[in-house]
């Protein structure tokens, strides 16, 4: 296989620029996925994320991306909102159905600290996986007001103002990170290179 990493292009926000650049820096070949038939050309998929849960789902539906995403049987990495929309339900600007790939809901972060949670923070690995190999003690950049509430697929937790939230998930071929590897210096590039090297 050619190991082409697809990046879903959705929404007018789309920070695919930085995600593409970071994957290429990590040694990967990328293809921007603009239409459902592009899914046939790729070996792995990254769902980037900037925007709100509701808008993201609306755009994915409009572009007919929902079933190709749900049926993609190869490794997927969701970043930030890209991880969040894998959940069943989101509560940003009303209640919105997600892709339903992970048994989870996405709710506002409830803690005393300033929200959005923005800045570099550590991850505390709960269940090691290949994606997080070699980045145990690194810091990653977070930029979010919502968190994924999940109890069954937690790969890592992060603490913000004494509040613990899910910062990475893993379920079979599905990987998700709440932070932005493409904005996390060498540690982020390392994580992306782990994803590139991942075997199905």
């Amino acid at each position, binding site marked *: 296989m050619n190991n082409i990493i697809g990046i879903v292009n959705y929404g007018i926000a789309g920070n695919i620029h930085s995600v593409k650049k970071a994957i290429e820096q990590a040694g990967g070949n990328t293809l921007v996925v603009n239409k459902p038939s592009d899914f046939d050309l790729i070996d792995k998929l990254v769902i980037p994320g900037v925007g*709100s849960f509701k808008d993201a789902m609306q755009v994915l539906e409009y572009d007919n991306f929902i079933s190709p995403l749900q049926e993609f049987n190869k490794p997927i990495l969701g970043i930030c909102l890209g991880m969040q929309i894998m959940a069943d339900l989101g509560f940003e600007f009303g209640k919105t159905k997600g892709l339903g790939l992970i048994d989870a809901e996405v709710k506002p972060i409830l803690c005393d600290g300033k*929200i*959005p949670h923005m*800045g570099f923070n550590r991850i505390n690995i709960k269940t090691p996986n290949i994606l997080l190999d070699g980045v145990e003690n690194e810091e990653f950049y977070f930029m979010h007001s919502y968190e994924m509430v999940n109890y069954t697929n937690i790969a890592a937790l992060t603490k913000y103002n004494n509040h613990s939230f899910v910062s990475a998930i893993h379920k079979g071929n599905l990987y998700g990170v709440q932070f932005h590897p493409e904005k996390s210096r060498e540690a982020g*590039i390392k994580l992306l290179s782990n994803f590139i090297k991942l075997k199905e």
Partner: protein
Amino acid sequence: MTRLIAKLDVKPPYVVKPVHFEGLRKIGNPSELAKKYYDQGADELFYIDIVSSLYQREILFDGIEKVANELFIPFAAGGGVKSIDDFSKMFHMGADKVVINTHAIQENPDIIDKAAKIFGSQAVVVNIEAKRWKSNWECYTDCGRIQSQKDVLDWVKEAEQRGAGEILLQSVDMDGRCRGFDTELASEVVSITGVPVVVSSGAGSLKDIKELIEIASPSGVAIASLLHYDRENIQSIKKYLNNKNDSVT
């Protein structure tokens, strides 16, 4: 964990440094400086085209893309943003956050609500150019030139309600002087808002930064002159703060 942010004030094609938002001095090339501060360990980078609103011209997106290409850290860009389309273009050029001031104050504060709804609050930074007026502070626009008659504290609360995810707080009085921050302004703003506040304008020494963090606990400190003139670098600042203040990493 106070974020240390390098701030580039840009008058394309150069990074410049105004004093009190006036009297521009040419510092260097934006993408070279971005790379330099990235290599030094900056947590983030802010890029503000400081003359775009003032000259009422289109945003020069090329320069923004060139800077974004140098970085694997968060990048906020602004200057002359007037529409949702401008926000969108900024993101496509590689910005993670977009900074807005003049248009939101003078013409259309609703753009904050709209941008937050589409791009998420975390991507919308409201830039405040505060100038002391009697015992309060007034918001200025167009790079510290035009009075708005809006009270800074009122505007901070309004911006937060509208969905701003971060405040960039600059002081027209202190900017570029390197004589310390307006810590009173910073404390007031940090205490009345639930969103992160990045404080800028005034860092002249390591002590100034430490003092600001101790007094106001901002989420971030944005630094320009101190770095531009190589008086300090991000590493030396981080090292100093780590030794002196356990809350900073």
